[in-house]
């Protein structure tokens, strides 16, 4: 019965392959590769405007440099905006390769970097190594919409400029998201919890210390 035993094992394995449904399989042609983001704030409606620069894979032919297109969405938080953006696109947005986040100077001055940096750090795909740039233009989106003198993806160019600047002229301090966070987060909070019984001496101690 060795043959049947092997057959049974093979059948179990075959089921495993089908039932897994190709877990986490995401086809490259069903992704919108977000290269950069620009974040503005609308004071009247109290919403964030987020512009996504997406590599435009369909438009360009293979010889010329790849162009990008811009998708804009709004939301009460960055996360909300990112979800709203998905409704405008047929494919899902993929943030894993984003390398530049442009923040308008209004956001930086009035709201602070925290909501933005917080989202970058918490999002599963976004990397902590993205470059954070503060735009001096009227809106952050203006920077991504630049057409003068440069063909191709603006975010890639910004990334390149920031990186080269550090080496060549050293005129500014460049920082990636992680270092920004470290520098601009005023209070460092470590979330923690502890299971205590009623008579836990530690709990009493903790209460007295916080009171």
């Amino acid at each position, binding site marked *: *019965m060795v043959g*049947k*035993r092997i057959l*049974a094992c093979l059948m179990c394995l075959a089921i495993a*392959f089908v039932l*897994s449904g*190709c*877990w*986490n*399989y*995401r*086809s*490259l*042609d069903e*992704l919108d*590769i977000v*290269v950069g983001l620009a974040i503005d704030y609308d004071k009247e409606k109290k919403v964030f405007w987020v512009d996504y620069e997406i*590599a435009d*894979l*369909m438009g*360009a032919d*293979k010889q010329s440099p*790849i162009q990008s297109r811009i998708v804009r969405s709004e939301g009460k938080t960055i996360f909300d905006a990112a979800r709203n953006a998905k409704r405008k696109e047929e494919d899902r947005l*993929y943030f*894993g*390769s984003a*390398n530049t986040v442009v923040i308008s100077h209004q956001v930086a001055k009035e709201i602070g970097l925290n909501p933005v940096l917080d989202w970058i750090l918490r999002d599963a*795909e976004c990397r902590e190594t993205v470059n954070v740039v503060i735009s001096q233009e009227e809106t952050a989106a203006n920077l991504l919409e630049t057409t003068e003198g440069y063909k191709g993806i603006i975010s*890639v160019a910004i990334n390149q400029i920031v990186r080269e600047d550090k080496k060549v002229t050293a005129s500014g301090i460049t920082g990636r998201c992680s270092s920004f966070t470290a520098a601009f987060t005023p209070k460092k909070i470590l979330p923690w919890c502890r299971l205590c019984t009623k008579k836990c001496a530690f709990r009493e101690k903790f209460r007295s210390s916080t009171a």
Partner: protein
Amino acid sequence: MQPFWKRKREPKIRNLDKKLEQWNGSLDQEKVKPSLDDNMAIVKKLFADMDMMRYKVIETDGKNPARYGIVFCDGLVSSEIINTHIVKPLMLLTPSGKGSLIDNLLTSVVQVGETQVTDNFKNLVENVTYGDTILFADGCAQAAILSTKNFALRSITEPENEKVLGGPREGFTESLTQNISQILRRLRTHELKVRKLTLGRKTQTAICICYIESLVNKEVLQELYRRIGKIDIDGVLEENYIAEIIRDHPYSAFRTTGYTERPDVVVGKLLEGRIAMVVDGTPMVATFPYLFIENFQSNEDYYFNYYFTSFSRILRMCAFLLTVVVPGFFIAVVAFHQEMLPLQLLIKIAQERQSVPLPAAIEAVVMLMVFELLRETGVRMPSNIGQALSIVGALVIGQAAVEANLVAAPMIIVVAATGITGLVVPKMNAPITVWRIIVLAFASSFGFYGLSVSIGLMLIHICSLTSFGVEQISLKGSFKFQAIKDIFFRAPWFKMVVRPDRLTSNHVRQSEGNHGG
């Protein structure tokens, strides 16, 4: 009721052997008769409807009138030997001596070096069908077998599928004796033993087991004889018939017996304590035991500068890993772990994939099949239509499919890399084909997790392999120089002072420190 996988199959009654014995027995027990006419009648009956057999009766008168019969098979014999050294002396000379008539004939009449006397028809049949001549004498219940073999053989040429840049260019041929002679010529010692066996009920194929007595591992030799002794097969046309029956791990895709077409390789392996099996009718010589590293070793490694050949050997190992892993790795990256790709590469690959109809995993399977088809066609097709294949392969599949956006260009590159690296180690074509598909299936189902699981499975499987009880990969954890001198690199000859310790207990190969003048 027991579940179906626990039920025992009833042992099949093997009455085949008994039937065979009965059938063979009739020939085995058939003895040579004293009467020449009876003998000739039996031979004619055995070879009825076999028109290549020639029968001749010679009668002499004079002092001692005698009658002789000779039987031979046309096409296998040298008619010159038969005419001038058998027929002519039989007609002219009279036997003298004290022995039986047939012995006297052999000692004083027939001018043939290799002779044998028998009274068994089975023996006669086996030899006459291999180009020998039977000599019957009237009144004698024995027959002589005279060696008159002469058949067309291929001349010694360089093996087509084991090309080398330098070193000996001789290859084995289909003749057992010629092959043995090529080994003997290179090993002029009494310690070289050549044991002859016969296998195959119908083909009666001669097989020679060669080894060097002082080097061979006796347990391996005993085990080999034991396994060969159990074989009962009707025909042996190639070394693989036997190797596949007697090998360890018969269901593994990896080789556990070696083969080569080169006499220098065989002698090299004999000198390391291995056993060679030469099979009549094929230029392939099997070697046992077979270590895993032999898949990557080439005889050239020992003939050229060791820096270069060590590099080549590492290339071969990388090629094996690449050809197994690359398709699965590519699918895992493209379909699961896009984070692994730098932005520019990601955009390029994504751009190519935009208008391609099939998912990456299926595309990989299809393209691999196309490549395998092209390769198989290249082997099987008549050689004078090779141009058609290259046009179809290169233009239609390479260019047109990409331009029509049916297949993504990176996939073509991946398949090409897979295919080319797969051809570097031709001895591993079976494991490569099997494990490439397994790795691909796992990787395209579970990403890098599946990739690492499948590669892990493969490594565990390789580590569990043995060849005639010898581990294919030594896991003793010895990293002494002499243990690894011929694994990942080939140490210079003056440093290879001992033989592989897994193969032989007679270690010392050369006295130490005889280098550099």
